């Protein structure tokens, strides 16, 4: 057994029921073109993209619509051909249910492509910088859900030595199966993407980690690896990891596979690891080999409330109501919609919201008639045992509830990954994660206020100094002519 096959463990974790077979029964279908696409300018972590087209313009599939803003951002392309209607605020998938600026594209149904540079022959000649630029220009972000721009994550200019490239195929969240289906159907493409990532990062080893409940995906990836093993310049492994939520969490997977711990407040690259999702690897292969930017994504539409659960290839910007209609519609009118899985997902407040780059799952669940009763904390400590970050959820809950944010900070609230394990095991059904999110938001806004106040203080002091200096100068000026005339009179 090789050293990296040693089974490391991360603390805590839970075993929620998977419900995965619900959406793996059928092949991947493509959703037909909707009439209108809504493309939010901010579909990624970082700054909003900047619009470069005007209303009324005709655009083709793959054409650049918005360019990235510095320093962390991603461009947005037209998923199909059509006419830009306007750029207006429209409901976006966000827990607030608020609207944000979106490019509204009236689809013409022609699906005519913009002239794309076919780089198939050139891909092998690209150097590291060109490869990263290509990924950046294609608007690729982490497709596992966090939507962090991929090009920023793999940029070696950070000066950290990366010795392990970790490809995340764990997909530990219940209900979600899009990575599983992608690995079953596009294994070759994923390995091509991983190979390109290896060319950029030049790691010592590359590990693809898949949870042991995805038997077909493991078999498909293993089969494809036989063909690709020769082309890799580094050690490459397919590691099967035991099913345990949240193995798919970046820090948990790093611990599980390499045994390394990402220091508090640091990034995986500080531990010498870069982690990318399998779907991101596939998108990278598409971008570099075919020259296709990120225009669509695979999304799991599942849950008890939808008629035809499954995995669908959907254009970015497709409104959720169109997606639901194509999936057979809702079973009843009282359903709850969630973007992502049941553990970490965000509630959606409207079916007008569009599919965005980071949306891996649309979970449609029938609303429980009687909501679970929230009861007092009995200090059983189960949450602390379940926490994969070794935090003390009970203490954090108390401090968040009492608005004692400095104490919560001292108990490492910012290390909480909001995985929901504590909430899952809580016998009192306390919405713990909600408390942590609230506390984190408050702490962040307090920091911002503090920063703003410091800036205001500085500017005020500068202004005072300037006024005083001005007055002093004026007084001196008034005095000087008087002195001069005195001198003159003495001389004469």
């Amino acid at each position, binding site marked *: 057994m090789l050293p990296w096959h040693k089974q490391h463990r991360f603390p805590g974790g839970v075993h929620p029921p998977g419900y995965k077979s619900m959406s793996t029964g059928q092949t991947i279908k493509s959703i037909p073109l909707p009439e209108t696409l809504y493309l939010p300018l901010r579909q990624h972590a970082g700054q909003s993209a900047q619009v470069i087209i005007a209303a009324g313009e005709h655009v083709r599939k793959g054409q650049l619509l918005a360019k990235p803003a510095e320093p962390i951002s991603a461009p947005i392309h037209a998923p199909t051909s059509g006419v830009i209607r306007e750029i207006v605020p429209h409901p976006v998938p966000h827990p607030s249910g608020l609207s944000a600026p979106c490019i509204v594209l009236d689809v013409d149904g022609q699906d005519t492509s913009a002239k794309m540079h076919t780089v198939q022959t050139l891909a092998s000649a690209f150097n590291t910088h060109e490869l990263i630029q290509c990924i950046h220009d294609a608007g690729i972000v982490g497709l596992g859900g966090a939507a962090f721009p991929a090009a920023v994550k793999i940029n070696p200019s950070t000066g950290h030595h990366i010795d392990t490239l970790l490809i995340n195929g764990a997909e530990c969240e219940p209900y979600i199966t899009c990575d599983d289906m992608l690995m079953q159907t596009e294994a070759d493409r994923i390995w091509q993407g991983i190979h390109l990532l290896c060319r950029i990062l030049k790691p010592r080893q590359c590990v693809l980690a898949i949870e042991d409940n995805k038997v077909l995906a493991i078999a498909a990836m293993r089969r494809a690896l036989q063909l690709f093993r020769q082309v890799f310049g580094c050690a490459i492994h397919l590691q099967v990891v035991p099913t345990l939520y949240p193995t798919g969490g970046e820090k948990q997977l790093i611990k599980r596979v390499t045994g390394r711990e990402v220091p508090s407040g640091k990034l995986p690259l500080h531990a010498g690891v870069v982690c990318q999702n399998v779907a991101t690897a596939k998108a990278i292969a598409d971008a570099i080999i075919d020259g296709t930017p990120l225009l669509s994504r695979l999304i799991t539409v599942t849950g008890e409330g939808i008629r035809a659960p499954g995995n669908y290839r959907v254009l970015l910007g497709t409104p959720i109501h169109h997606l639901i209609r194509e999936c057979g519609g809702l079973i009843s009118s009282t359903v709850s919609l969630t973007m992502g899985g049941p553990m970490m997902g965000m509630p959606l407040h409207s079916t007008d919201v569009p599919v965005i780059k980071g949306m891996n799952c649309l979970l449609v669940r029938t609303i429980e008639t009687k909501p679970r009763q929230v009861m007092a904390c009995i200090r059983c400590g189960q949450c602390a045992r379940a926490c994969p970050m070794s935090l003390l959820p009970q203490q954090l809950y108390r401090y968040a509830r009492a608005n004692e944010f400095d104490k919560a900070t001292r108990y490492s609230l910012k290390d909480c990954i909001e995985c929901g394990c504590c909430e899952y095991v809580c016998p009192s059904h306390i919405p713990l994660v909600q408390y942590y999110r*609230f506390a984190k938001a408050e702490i962040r806004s307090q920091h911002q206020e503090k920063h703003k106040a410091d800036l205001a203080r500085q500017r005020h002091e500068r202004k005072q100094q300037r006024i005083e200096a001005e007055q002093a100068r004026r007084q001196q000026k008034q005095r000087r002519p008087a002195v001069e005339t005195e001198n003159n009179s003495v001389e004469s």
Partner: protein
Amino acid sequence: MLSALLVFTLLGLAFGAVLGFAAVRFQVQGDPMVDKIDAILPQTQCGQCGFPGCRPYATAIAKDEADINRCPPGGETAVVALADLLGKPAKPLAAENAKAKTYVVIDEERCIGCTKCIQACPVDAIVGAAKHMHTVIKELCTGCDLCIEPCPVDCIHTREHITTTETWKWPAPTTQIEYREAS
């Protein structure tokens, strides 16, 4: 008896000397409490507390001449922080001082370029030159409204901050804990 007296006298003299030296050597210029209070205040320099700026208000609090609940831009957080610092009970914001956070905009059509608002702005958040249009840098505006009064053409208006997806904050959970009676 005598030796005890002698020992305590000597000790007293020795400590007195140390304290006297420390008082001269480690003397602090100004009141450190004022700095601490000033650090908590939001520095809008708005004067809504009745003092001509944050520092004068901080000085007044340090001298126990003003209440801690007179700063509307600081809101409840500032009151709680001040209460913590000074060991006083926290109290709700004084009614005459309560107000939502705002910023100002200049109606650029009507601005005559008199520079009066620029002189009034305590944080240099207004840019412009004489006889040229002025404008407010929204990010720097503290919402003190000190520029509204001097404007001769009344072209400065208060606006409330609108919540966007980027400024939105997770609210506190509203679920009430139910206590069941033991049966």
